[in-house]
Every structure is written in structure tokens, then in C-alpha cells.
């Protein structure tokens, strides 16, 4: 791509497995995560949370907490100087509850004290008189129930009507599917450090996904001009969507301004589970119509997503689920209705896959059902309907970019199946270390799934990123506010600058809100494209000046935009998306039929990547995403009981261990450069999660012969299916 006057290309450019600049420090334990922050004279913050999913607050008395030695401040709703609300789409979530609490874990007060333990004791000493109310926990009921918030119970209601809504097919299959509430389960709990400044502002060091949007929400709540809230990215220990919403940002800034001291807060694991959004649990009723020879005629779907107490990104999540309700297939007719509603369950929002995960489980389950009804091979059925460039989504939008769906299906299904080990290590059987399996009662199953998802923000959102590149003394410095959350943007930024400027020494400066404008969110698989594009643009501008003969220091700032999108119309039609990414997964599982325990043996995958920017990082995203997909398929669920979270800890919220993680076989990385994408590269972070869950579920069905319309599949769903 780059025209250069050099003879030997620089090391660590685009396409190489350049090492991460923060890799060694992370592996050696020297990397400072946000929970490692420290400032002289700092005090510790702690949030008091509601123990009820729904209650009226009768009275709050902070006196007993303030009386405890070592307590510096206790703040409640009445201390919020600005708007007592935040939210990514709608500002409907109070910084502190005022008259009512709407979910278990809602913030009621915050304390600053000389020690975290003092702060915790002070929180226990705050007197809050609650009048518990009957919680609204059923999403379907919420549609018509009395509103539990002034903004009503419906976050979004969407209708898509595509083609002929009255069309019918010779063969019709129906199913109702459910997805449980998954958590992002990142390792590094929410944490940050707020330092009051002499100018009346505050410096906030925080692990987050989008600095500038956090800043604006903090400034609004504190009634400060945005320029007086200066945010710097602190080391992020994983995100997966859970750091998109404000968690403790406002609380610690408010405490810092109240106490005049730096305030640090680190969530406990339990608070982390209560204090961030989760993946939407949902119920999806489907009907597929097809011709006898296996061509899709129409897809009908009705989806109800439980958004919990506050809006967060429920609207866009639902839009995604509806847009991709039919999957990566060409479907001439569709009728889709979606609801995202408010309940007294924990708020739900962004998580890797963002609405496409739920839809994928349903549409892929339906494709298998349809294949069975047609007596057709499920892979063949998918191939017959595979979307390609020039087809239209059910929103009527033309797929103008690359869509190598058929290649993905062919390469993934052609991967050799793992051999049946005649004498497997007992630890590698279902049940693992519990050695509960009886080899005679273990059945193998194979399942297949394919997915589609959008890249970047959609529906008219003005999405952009900004980057600055400075070239001086043969070294380049990149300034960009893109949040490095572990995905490796810092590596890619170096690779891009090396590639364009042919300098090896590239330094990534700290991401903050003072030095540069927004980079947008590290989500929607967008940073490689958006901030990668901004870095490339800035580097090319520098290159042009150098090639024009300029010497000495050269600095350029570039703002990268993608092509514009529009919101969906009333019939759910419109050009809402920028680009799409596809993946195929084949799962092989062993199931203990009597105990219902599952061991995922292997996942083979083919992924549409546009261009491999960094092979090791692509593999990392694929393996990590599959771990999360396997988790959702067989174990990861926040267990709710009447609005109470029953397993807010890693003791009982189970994520896969090394014994649960399958072999991952990358059958193919399809490199078809995406028009408009920097270097032709598509984001790679989300697809591995989206169809891997559906593939595992299909494999378990294959092994057991059961319907299994819900993930995660629990042992009792299999073992007690007959009774």
C-alpha cells in the first residue's frame, strides 16, 4: 500500500506479529492497572448500594457514618451539583437514587474514608429506611405494566417489514429460544483515582472504554465545563462492553471535590457484578418459511430483551438483534418485532456481540430445525442461502462490501474432525476433574453456526476518531484517545505508523481528553478501522510533508470518519450500517447423557477479517472470543431470583477454565480487503463470540437429540429432559 524510498521494509509493520508494547510489563506483573493507582494523601471511596430490586426510600441519615473516625465525606443525591443522571443513550440512571431504587445494587450514597475498611463500615452505618415494593422482573409483563420510571418501561420497540409480509413457504419451522444473562467477567475490577485540581476541576484516572463520553457525563453531573474534567486512561483489565457505561466515575469525582483530596475506589468482585451492565437476557419466538429445495422464503421473529432498570444501550442492542434476526442469509421477506424493556433486574447493555449473539443463537437453531424438516444437511442448507455481496439485509440495505459467507462455511466445514481418542485422559471427559464420566454413556456431537454483525456504530451516529502523529529525530509519537482495553490497539497503531512512515521507533503516548479530541468507543469492533484510520491518516499527512522535502519536526492531526448511515425508517428499512463481518464455527462436544455434563472438544472456525493486521493478535481475539462463547453456551449465567443476583462472585459465576476450553482450529482467515477500511481490515473482536455459542448448542443437540432451546444449557436440561 505504501510507496516508500526504502530498500528494506521496516520491522514490525502491518501484517507482522509485532509484539505488544505493554506485553512484557503485563506478563511480568509490572503493568499498572487502574487498581494500582496511588496519590499522596488519597482517601478511599466506597458506594452504598440498594439491597432491594424495588423500594421507596423513606429517609436517609448519613449522620452515624459521618461520626465514624476516619470518614471524610458522605454524599447522596442532594450533593450532586449538576444533573443527577447519566446514561449513554438516555440520561435516565441517577448518580444516586433519590426517592426510589430500581435494582439491587443501585447506588444510594458514597463515602470517602482513610481506609477502604473504614469506608465499608461507614456505608453500613448510613441509615436508609426503605419501603420495599413488588419488583417488576418479567420482561414480557413490563411492556404493559405500570411504569416503574417516569420515562416508561419501553426502551425501544422496533418493527421490520421487508418484502412481502404475507409470503409463505412450503416448509415452516417454529421455535422459541432463550438466552440467559451473561456477564463480561473481566479480571480487573472497576477502579479509578480522582484528583481535585486548583482550578476547581478534577483529574480522573480511570479504566474505561471511551474517555470523552465519560468526561461529558461526569461534567454534566458535576455542573462543570467539560474542559475542567480531565480524564486519563488508566490500565484496563478487560472490558468486553462493561466499561462503556459510567460506574464510579461521578462518585469519586464528587468525593474528591467534597474532600479536597485524591479519592481512589476499587470495586470488590461482588460490587463489580452489581455495578456494571450485563448481556441482555431475552426470549425470541421464530418462524422460518422455506421452499422444499431449501431456499429461505420468510423469517418471522418476535424478540423481547430485558434491559433491566436503566436504558444504557438497550436501544442499539435491540436494533442489532432485529437487523440480524435472519442471520447471514439472503431472505426476501421478513417480519421482525423487537422490544427492549425496563424491569427491576440489573441494567443490561453492551457486551461483545451486542445483540447479534442472541439473534445468532435463535436463527442458527432455526436453520438446524429447518434442515431437519427438509431432510437436508445443515451445512448445505446454509450454503444454499449464504449471503453475498449485492444481496440485501432484511432492512433493505445493500451489502456493498465483502461478504465471503460461502467461503467461510466451506472452509470451516471442511476442516478435518478431531479423532475420537480411544483412551482419553479422564480429565478430558465431560465432568473433567470430578471423574464422573462413564465412557459408555458419553456421546459425541457436532454442530455448526454462522454469524453476521455490523462494524462501527450505526443508525446515523456520527462516528469518528482523532489521532495525531509527530515525527521527530527519526522517531514517531502517536497521540490518540482510543482506549486500549487489552485488544492490542497500541500494537496496531505502532504497526500502521511503521508501515506508513518506515520508522521503527513508534511511541504511543497516554490516552487522555486534554491532548486530543475523541477517538470514540473501544467497542463495536471499530478501533482498528476508526482509530486505525485516524492514525493512518495522520501518518500519511506527515509522510506527504516529508516527501515534500520538509525536515525537522512534523506533526499532523487527522479525524477519520466512516461513510454516513441513517436511522431505520418506520418499517425498519434503511441504510443503518457501515460494514459487516462474518464468521463460521463448528463445535465438537462430548456429552455425558446421564449427568448432562458437556466437554467442548474442539471449535473450528473460519473468519472474515478483511486483512490480517497482526496474526498473533487475531488468534488471541479468536481464542478469547471463543472462550466467552463456550462460556455462554454451557455455564455463564447471572442467576436472578425475584430481582436479586444469586451468584455475584467467581465462586458461582463460572467462566471456562483451561479444562473447559476446547482446542481451537483456525480453518481459514478469509482476507478480502473491505472497501473503505484502512488496509482493508475488518474488526476481529466480536465474531468469535457470536456464532461459537450457537455452534456448541447445536453440537449438544446433535449428541443428545434434545431441543435445548435455551443457553446456557444446564446439566439438568439434559439429564432431566426425559422426566
Amino acid at each position, binding site marked *: 500500500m505504501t510507496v516508500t524510498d526504502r530498500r528494506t521494509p521496516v520491522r514490525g509493520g502491518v501484517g507482522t506479529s509485532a509484539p505488544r508494547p505493554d506485553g512484557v510489563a503485563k506478563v511480568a506483573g509490572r503493568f499498572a492497572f487502574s487498581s494500582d493507582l496511588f496519590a499522596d494523601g488519597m482517601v478511599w471511596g466506597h458506594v452504598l448500594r440498594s439491597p432491594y430490586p424495588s423500594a421507596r426510600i423513606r429517609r436517609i441519615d448519613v449522620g452515624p457514618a459521618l461520626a465514624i473516625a476516619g470518614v471524610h465525606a458522605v454524599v447522596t443525591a442532594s450533593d450532586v451539583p449538576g444533573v443527577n443522571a447519566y446514561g449513554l443513550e438516555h440520561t435516565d440512571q441517577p448518580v444516586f437514587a433519590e426517592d426510589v431504587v430500581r435494582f439491587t445494587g443501585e447506588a444510594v450514597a458514597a463515602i470517602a474514608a482513610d481506609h477502604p*475498611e*473504614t469506608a*465499608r463500615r461507614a456505608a453500613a452505618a448510613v441509615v436508609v429506611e426503605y419501603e420495599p415494593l413488588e419488583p417488576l422482573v418479567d420482561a414480557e409483563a413490563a411492556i404493559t405494566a405500570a411504569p416503574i420510571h417516569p420515562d416508561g418501561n419501553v426502551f425501544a420497540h422496533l418493527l421490520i417489514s421487508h418484502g412481502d409480509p404475507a409470503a409463505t413457504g412450503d416448509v415452516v419451522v417454529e421455535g422459541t429460544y432463550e438466552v440467559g444473562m451473561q456477564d463480561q467477567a473481566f479480571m480487573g475490577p472497576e477502579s479509578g483515582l480522582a484528583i481535585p485540581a486548583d482550578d476547581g476541576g478534577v483529574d480522573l484516572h480511570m479504566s474505561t472504554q471511551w474517555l470523552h463520553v465519560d468526561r461529558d457525563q461526569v461534567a454534566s453531573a458535576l455542573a462543570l465545563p467539560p474542559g475542567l474534567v480531565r480524564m486519563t486512561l488508566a490500565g484496563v483489565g478487560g472490558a468486553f462492553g462493561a466499561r462503556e457505561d459510567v460506574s464510579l466515575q461521578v462518585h469519586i469525582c464528587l468525593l474528591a471535590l467534597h474532600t479536597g483530596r485524591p479519592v481512589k475506589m476499587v470495586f*470488590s468482585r*461482588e460490587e463489580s457484578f452489581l455495578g456494571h451492565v450485563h448481556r441482555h437476557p431475552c426470549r425470541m419466538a421464530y418462524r422460518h418459511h422455506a421452499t422444499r429445495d431449501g431456499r429461505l422464503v420468510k423469517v418471522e421473529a418476535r424478540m423481547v430483551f430485558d434491559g433491566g432498570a436503566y436504558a444504557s444501550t438497550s436501544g442499539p442492542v435491540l436494533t442489532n438483534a432485529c437487523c440480524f434476526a435472519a442471520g447471514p442469509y439472503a431472505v426476501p421477506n421478513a417480519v421482525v418485532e423487537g422490544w427492549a424493556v425496563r424491569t427491576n433486574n440489573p441494567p443490561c447493555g453492551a457486551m461483545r456481540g451486542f445483540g447479534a449473539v442472541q439473534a445468532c443463537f435463535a436463527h442458527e437453531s432455526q436453520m438446524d430445525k429447518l434442515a431437519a424438516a427438509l431432510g437436508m444437511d445443515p451445512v448445505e442448507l446454509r450454503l444454499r442461502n449464504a449471503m453475498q455481496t449485492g444481496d440485501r439485509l432484511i432492512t433493505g440495505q445493500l451489502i456493498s462490501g465483502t461478504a465471503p459467507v460461502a467461503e467461510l462455511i466451506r472452509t470451516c466445514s471442511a476442516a478435518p474432525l478431531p479423532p475420537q481418542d480411544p483412551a482419553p485422559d479422564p*480429565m478430558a471427559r*465431560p*465432568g*473433567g*476433574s*470430578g*471423574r*464422573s464420566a*462413564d465412557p459408555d454413556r458419553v456421546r459425541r456431537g457436532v454442530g455448526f453456526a454462522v454469524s453476521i454483525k455490523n462494524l462501527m456504530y450505526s443508525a446515523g451516529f456520527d462516528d469518528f476518531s482523532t489521532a495525531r502523529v509527530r515525527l521527530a529525530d527519526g522517531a514517531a509519537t502517536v497521540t490518540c484517545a482510543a482506549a486500549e482495553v487489552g485488544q492490542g490497539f497500541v500494537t496496531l497503531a505502532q504497526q500502521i505508523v511503521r508501515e506508513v512512515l518506515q520508522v521503527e521507533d513508534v511511541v504511543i503516548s497516554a490516552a487522555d481528553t486534554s491532548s486530543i479530541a475523541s477517538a470514540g468507543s473501544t467497542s463495536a469492533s471499530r478501533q482498528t478501522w476508526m482509530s486505525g484510520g485516524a492514525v493512518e491518516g495522520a501518518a500519511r499527512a506527515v509522510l506527504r510533508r516529508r516527501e515534500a522535502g520538509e525536515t525537522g519536526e512534523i506533526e499532523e492531526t487527522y479525524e477519520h470518519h466512516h461513510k454516513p448511515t441513517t436511522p431505520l425508517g418506520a418499517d425498519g428499512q434503511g441504510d443503518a450500517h457501515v460494514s459487516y463481518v462474518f464468521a463460521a464455527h463448528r463445535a465438537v462436544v462430548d456429552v455425558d447423557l*446421564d*449427568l*448432562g*455434563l458437556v*466437554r467442548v472438544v474442539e471449535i473450528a472456525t473460519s473468519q472474515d477479517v478483511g486483512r490480517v493486521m497482526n496474526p498473533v493478535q487475531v488468534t488471541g481475539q479468536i481464542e478469547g472470543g471463543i472462550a466467552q462463547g463456550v462460556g455462554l453456551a*454451557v*455455564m455463564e449465567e447471572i*442467576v436472578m*431470583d425475584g430481582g436479586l443476583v*444469586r*451468584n455475584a462472585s467467581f*465462586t*458461582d459465576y*463460572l467462566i*471456562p*477454565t*483451561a*479444562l*473447559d476450553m476446547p482446542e481451537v482450529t483456525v480453518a481459514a482467515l478469509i482476507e478480502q480487503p473491505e472497501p473503505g477500511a484502512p488496509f482493508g481490515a475488518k474488526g476481529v473482536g466480536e465474531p468469535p463470540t457470536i456464532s461459537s455459542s450457537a455452534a456448541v448448542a447445536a453440537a449438544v443437540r446433535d449428541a443428545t437429540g434434545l431441543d435445548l432451546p435455551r443457553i446456557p444449557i*444446564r*446439566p*439438568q436440561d439434559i*439429564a*432431566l429432559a426425559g*422426566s
Partner: protein
Amino acid sequence: MSGSVTVARSLDQALDALRSGPDARLVAGGTDLMVEVNAGRWQPGTLVSVDRAPELRGWHRDGDEIVLGSGLTYAEMERGELARLVPALAQAARTVGSPQIRNAGTLGGNVVTASPAGDTLPVLTALDAVVQIAGPEGTRISPLREFVRGVKRTDLRAGEVVTAVRVPALRGAQEFLKVGTRNAMVISVVMVAVVVDLDGHTVRVGVGSAAPVPVRAPLAEEYVGALVDWERARMDDPTGEVAAQFGELVAQATSPIDDHRSTAAYRRRAVAVCAARAVRRAFQEPESP
């Protein structure tokens, strides 16, 4: 919040330190106690650390019995001569937590925590283990089935230390099966231990996570004990009916509950399946190498 730690270098030092006040508490591996502290369920007062007290460490044979020091770690139970002598305990130990937990966690801690999900408890129950206790008034013994009184409740009195757990050295197969919804590092949904005593002509079963305390299943034990050919140490069960019936009888001895980890119905089923598999494994022909 004021806390202190006394490192006891002998049993006597530990007993002395416990006398220092009502808020004094023993800590061995700390893998249960620190979870309590972190969850705010217990505010550290005086901690008496016993992992350097030699009287509590290791194990030894005493005639027909094996004396397991309360400070025995899972890593020590998992391998070597002890694993050969009490294979079900070794297998239970292998299922506990992660290597870090198995290096720190102890038998005494598991017994005193007395969680229904304590993994060693079904094995010790099947073995009719006896708990040895030292206290201000001297030493005493308490059979495990009396020592564990309820969910996380024991017969341990103020100032007392569990010094050891005695189990018989038996001739015969031993099995331990644990069910959880993850393949490692998981709190059990149920577990079943089966111990065969070829000299006493008994088959003994202990079940965990399926009642407030670990349970035995006398009807099941009698049923299968009567059907074993003790001369050949074989159970004639070509169709698997005996094992299945044994499993059903074991399940009937339990009283499981619904909770966030599983359901009572699944637990009952899983106990039946695991008990049947355990007894079949215990009497199957050894696989030719």
C-alpha cells in the same frame, strides 16, 4: 479492625494463644477464613496460625488406622503412599480448587468449615472417620457424623483445636465422583464416595451437597453388600440393574435443595447416577494394562 497474628510453633502454643480471648481464631491455610473476611462476614481479631505446628502436620499409620494430621494439605493427600492407602481421599483432593488452593487448604479446615460442599467430607463419612480434638480440658474424640452438626456447624468448642482425623486402612476399592458445572475448580453440585471393605464385607457410601450434612445410605449399603461375592471381590451385575438400584437407594437417603447452583431434582438424579457408576467401578475387573 485491630488484628494480630500469633504463629503457633506447637500445639501447646496454639492452645495457649486461643485462651487469649474470645475473638481468637485458628487459621490453617486460610482458604475459607479469608473468604469470610473478604465478604465481611468475620472481622479479624486474633488469628492463631497453626501451619507451623508440627503435631498437626503430615500423617502416619497407627496399627489398622491412618492418622491424618489436621494440617494435611490437599497436595499431600493427592499423591504418594497416602494416595494408595486412601484413594478416595486422594481423588477428592484432586478435585479441590486450583493448585494454589490445594497447596494451602487443609483437611482440618475442610472439616471445621463443615460446608455441605466440603469435598473430603463424603469420603471421611464413608470411612466412619473420627475427629481428634485437643482443648483446654485435654483431648477428646468425636465421630465425624456427630462432629458435623449442620450446615457449617460443628461440635468444636471454644479453645479447641482439631489435631487429626483417624480413618481405617481398608483393603478394597475406593471411588470418589464429583459433579459440578465446570470441569475443574468448581463447588460441587453433588459428590459420592464409595468405599469397599473386603475384610469387613461392607460397601459404604458417603454423599455430599445433597443434604445439610454428609449422609450415608444404610439401605443401599446393605442391599449391595448382600449381593457381592466377597470371596472373589466381584459383584455379579451383567445388566447394571444392581448398580442402578443401589444408586436409587442412595438417592433416597438424601434430601437435596434447589439453589443457585442446581435443583433438588437434578441433585437426586446425579447422586443416583454417580453412586451406580462408583459401585460398578469399584467391582469391575481391573483393566488389563
